[in-house]
Structure formats: C-alpha cells, structure tokens
C-alpha cells in the first residue's frame, strides 16, 4: 500500500517541487479512488501533476483535451465509416446476410477508441487527464459526470463496456467558467497558486541546474514583482523556466536593463503587457534590487 511519504518522495524524484497540500490531495485521491480537480492560473504545473503521477505510479497517462464543442464522438468513440464502407463493398457479392454484415462492421475492429473509452478499457489502471474541463460546454460536463460515476460506456451497437480498471482521474481548470456543483462534489479539490519566491527558486534550480545563483535569484524575484502588476496574461512558472533556460543558455550571470528589454518576449506574450512593463521597468528593477535607487 502506498504511503503519504512515498508520494512526496516520488514527486521529488520526478523533479516536481511541491508542498504538503498537493501531496495530500494526490495521496487521498489515489486512496479514495476519487477524481482530483485541480484549479489555478495558467502555467503553475496543473497538467504536470498528471504526468508526474503517471510516472510515479508507473502507468500510462491518457489525455483528453477539452474545448468548446467537444462531444461524445471525440471523447468516447467513433465508428470508422470509411473502413466500414470499404468492407461492405468488399463483401458485396458474398451471400452473407445483412445481419451478419452488420455484426462485422459494428465490431471492435471498426471502432475508433477515443480517450475516455481508452481509459476504461486500459490494461493497467491509467492516469486519465481531463485537461481544461472548463473549456468544454455544460452538455459535455454533464455527460462526463455520468461516465465518472458509473465507469461504463454504452455503445448501442455493441452493448455496455464496463471499466476493467477505474482510472485515476485528474481534471484541470482555469476558472474560465464556473463548474457545476455536481462535478465539484464528486471530486477532491486542489488549488495551485503561483509559487512563492523560495519555492520558485527551488523549481528553477531543479529544472535548470546549470543556472548561475545570482541570475536565478534575480529572475525569480523579478517574476514575483511582475505578477503583482495588473497584466493581461500573468506569466507562470513555465515562463520563468523558459527565461531561466534562455538566459543561462546565453551564459548571462546577472540581469540588467538591456537584457531584460531584449528578452522580455520570453516572459510576456501580450504587447500591452510588454509596453506596460517597459514603462515601469526601472521601478520594477528597483523593487527587485537589481539596480539600487539613485539619489
């Protein structure tokens, strides 16, 4: 049986720097076989959790990316129509009865499994990542609820397929839409926020080990200040890592105004944000201690 300390150890081994709340949620989600709903701003490693979990449990991760208009044919299964038609052409002159033909073309071989069906028919208990669930529409959400509670899928032509193993489910969301009460109740809930300076610095150190200490600390404190500004798209940890990787790749050992201006595009992805930061760059640098206040 898996222990709480094992989870922490596994997360650490996979290079995922985290706190006790995350470990506890993952642990209980595994033990109680309950889906885990992870919310938080973009780029804080929500999706990463599922990947790390799959690695830690030594199983596969199956991912369902949600978007508006996602429906059963993309999430569950679809018949391979082209193949079905070809098959019918091929057996046109056989004396098979229509019933038999039908049985053949509506069989496993002509079925295209989509993520949800894949997940419940998988040999080893997989990690099922339902990414950005809030982007799908309400219709899909209620459909998903049904699957998540019954763990079976009914295909009219074949019958009901029961889960061989109940997958370990992780749902992520950005709070772009309010999720239904019913879905929330079925899940354990975890909110991941932007990391504090110390944690972010640890993450940078573990992912970009070759980085200069001074540069790394400067980058992290600059990012902390950046997130306090009112930006259209607040940069996440992913951006911090990109920036750290880029700058250390350029063999830079400290930040200065020119370097920041030249590489700001790694961190900010909106031109208004870029302009905003450029305007208040000196102030930002003062706050982070990169340049000391003059006079």
């Amino acid at each position, binding site marked *: 049986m898996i222990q709480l300390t094992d989870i922490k150890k596994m997360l650490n081994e996979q290079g995922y720097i985290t706190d006790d709340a995350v470990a506890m949620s993952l*642990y*209980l989600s595994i033990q*109680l076989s309950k889906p885990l709903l992870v919310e938080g701003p973009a780029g804080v490693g929500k999706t990463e959790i599922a990947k790390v979990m799959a690695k830690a449990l030594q199983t596969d991760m199956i991912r369902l990316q949600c978007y508006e*208009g996602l429906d059963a044919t993309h999430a569950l299964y679809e018949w391979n129509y082209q193949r079905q*038609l070809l098959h*019918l052409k091929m057996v046109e002159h056989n004396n098979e009865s229509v019933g038999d033909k039908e049985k053949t073309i509506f069989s496993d071989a002509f079925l295209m499994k989509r993520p949800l069906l894949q997940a419940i028919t998988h040999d080893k208990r997989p990690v099922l990542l339902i990414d950005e669930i809030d982007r799908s529409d309400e219709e899909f959400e209620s459909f998903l609820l049904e699957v998540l509670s019954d763990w079976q899928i009914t295909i009219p032509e074949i019958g009901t397929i029961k889960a061989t193993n109940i997958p370990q489910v992780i749902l992520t969301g950005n709070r772009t839409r309010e999720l239904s009460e019913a879905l929330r109740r079925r899940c354990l*809930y975890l909110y991941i926020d932007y990391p504090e300076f110390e944690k972010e610095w640890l993450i940078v150190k573990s992912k970009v080990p070759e980085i200069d200490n001074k540069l790394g600390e400067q980058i992290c404190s600059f990012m902390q200040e950046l997130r306090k500004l009112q930006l259209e798209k607040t940069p996440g940890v992913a951006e911090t890592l990109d920036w750290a990787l880029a700058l250390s790749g350029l063999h830079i050992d400290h930040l200065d105004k020119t370097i920041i201006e030249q590489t700001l595009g790694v961190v900010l992805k909106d031109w208004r944000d870029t302009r905003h930061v450029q305007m208040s760059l000196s102030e930002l640098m003062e706050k982070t201690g990169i340049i000391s206040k003059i006079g």
Partner: protein
Amino acid sequence: MLITRQTSLSKNIVQFCRYLRQKGFVLGVQDEATALEALTFIDYSNRDIFRLALKSVLCKTKSQLQEFEQLFNSYWKQIGEAVDSKVKTVREQVLKPKDKDASFKSLKAWLNGNKNDEEEKVASYSSNESLSKKNFANIPDDEIDELLRLIKALSKKLAAKAGRRYEKSNKINLPDLRRTLRRNMRRGGELLELAYRNPKRNRTKLVLICDVSRSMELYAGFLLQFMYAFQHVYRRVETFAFSTSLHHITALLRQNDFHDALKILSNKNEGWNGGTRIGKSLHEFVQEFAPRVIDKKTIVIMMSDGWDAGDTELLKESMERIHKICRKLIWLNPLAGYEDYKPQVAGMRAALPFTDIFAAVHNAESLKRLGNWL
C-alpha cells in the same frame, strides 16, 4: 473498522461538517463519509496531516480553501476548550442574520409600486424626481404577466445563433455518416439515402447586473421583477445586484418565489438600499465572477443610473475590462427616459465609452426595444 473504534473522532468530524455547512460549505452525507474514510489512510494524530486531509476532502472551491484554515482552527479550539472545561456538548454559535425589517418593508414598497410617497425616502440627484414617480408609482402587479410575455419573445430571439455542435437535420447540408450508414444497411451498404446534420444552434448567455441603491429605489422593484422573470423563462442568465457591494443572486431568484426571494435578499444584504458604489461593486464583479460568467457569447446588461459615490476611476477600469471580454455591453438607465436627460453624472460619463448601447429603461415599453439589441 477504525471508524467504529473512534466514535468520538467520527462524531467530531460530523459535527465539524455541520459547522462548515453553517459557514456556507455545501457538504453532503457522502462528503462526511469520504472524510471519515480518508482518516483511515492517514496518521491523524499529526494535527497538520489531519488538517490537510480534511481540507482536501471538504473544500470544493478556492474561496473555501482560503476560509478553511481559520474555520478549522476556531472549531477545534472550541472543542479543545469544551473538553478542558468538561463541557460535554459544544454548541456552535449560529450566526443568524437579523431580520432587517425596515429594508424588507421598503423592498415590498417597491414591489407594490411605491404607494408610500414619503418625500424624504427618495434620494435622487435629479430635479426631475416628480416625473420619475409618474412613471413608476403605478406599476400594477399584473404587469409581470406582460413582462413574461415580452421576455419570452426576447429569449426566442436569443436562441438563433449557430454553434459548433451538430444536430440532426433534414436540410441538405453536411452528411451525417453514422446515420447514413445505419439507414442503408438494409440495402447491403449501398448509400442511397443520405442523412444530414447541421450546426447546432447556440443560445446567447446573459448577465444582468442591477443597481439597488437608494437613488434607484423607485426602479429597483421593477428591475428585480424583470430579472426574476427573465431568470425563469431563459436558462442562460446570471443575475447580480449591488449597492455598496455585489451579490450573486442567480440561485436565489431561480429557486424561490419572487416574494420569498426578496425577503431573503433583504435579510441578507445590509447594504441594500444604501449608498451606491458602482466602481467597487463592478470591480468585485470583475475579480470574482467575470471570468466565469462572461465569455465571448455573453451580453452584459447593466441597470443603473450611474450615480456613484465611490471611485470613478475604478468604475472606468472595470467597465473597460467587462467590455473587452463580453460580446456586448448594454447600459440601461431609468433616467434616460426623460426628454432632456443628459448623462452628466461622473460615473455615467466614465462608463459611456465602454458601453455598446445606452438606453432608457423606465417601463415595459422600453424593454420591448431591448429586443432589437440582443
């Protein structure tokens, strides 16, 4: 097994869940069971682990996560104290909202068409005060039927937009292979009879935000009726009311009879019928709700006279933000019904640049025109 052995612990968990429920957590029996089950997997003698486990099982939203620490501490502190002083049972203090009789009365007064014409109760900056009474003193109760008819027509109109999902169709358009194949099986798979599908039509989402402050007293009853009626005939509506702070009233209006809803509202909201802080309230809206309730298909309807006692800069910022993420921003101003109305209040002037449509709302007739813009 463990659960039965630890009866006092399990009793406490159930009590704690009850305590959380009083604090607004939505917890079912299922959640209590899950919490107890979770305890069997952890070392609950460690207080931190115990807290984390309960937190991860019992919290369902971000705000609950934030409240949890404090609630947890205060509850278990109370328990500790009770055990220390050998008191057997702990009665949590139930914070019952006091019955705000006065404000309910005035709400009722709006609803019944402001039969009490007490001058001093009407606070308005406008010199056209008497005119407004003419418009609104005589809203008959049965106008709600007329209103419902109007709103039904509106919601039909809203239903006419194409979406990304598909539905079956008899019009010749995109082929629906699944249904085609099914239909033609009896012919041995020769495709003679084709089936089609069409983009499914999408319904526009609506967000209604109503000003219920002092200066809007005359209109708020009518507007709340409007919101209530809308909520009942059209599914995709989110409703908010504000005076000094913002209140999400969708669930309240949906679940209750109109009079009950008003009663609950007036009990709950202390700032009700008070001064106006549009800027602050809208800012709250932007921070708390906007990303969740507004998308590119949403039409936002503000109903206010624009009379703001707070920060107009904040109002401007929030309006800009909302305008940017929604499809259309409509501002309905009850005062705009007067012939010589000019938007001179600072708040209104700040909001106008971000308003797609600025119009009057002073009677059912003006609501009819709303249909042209949706």
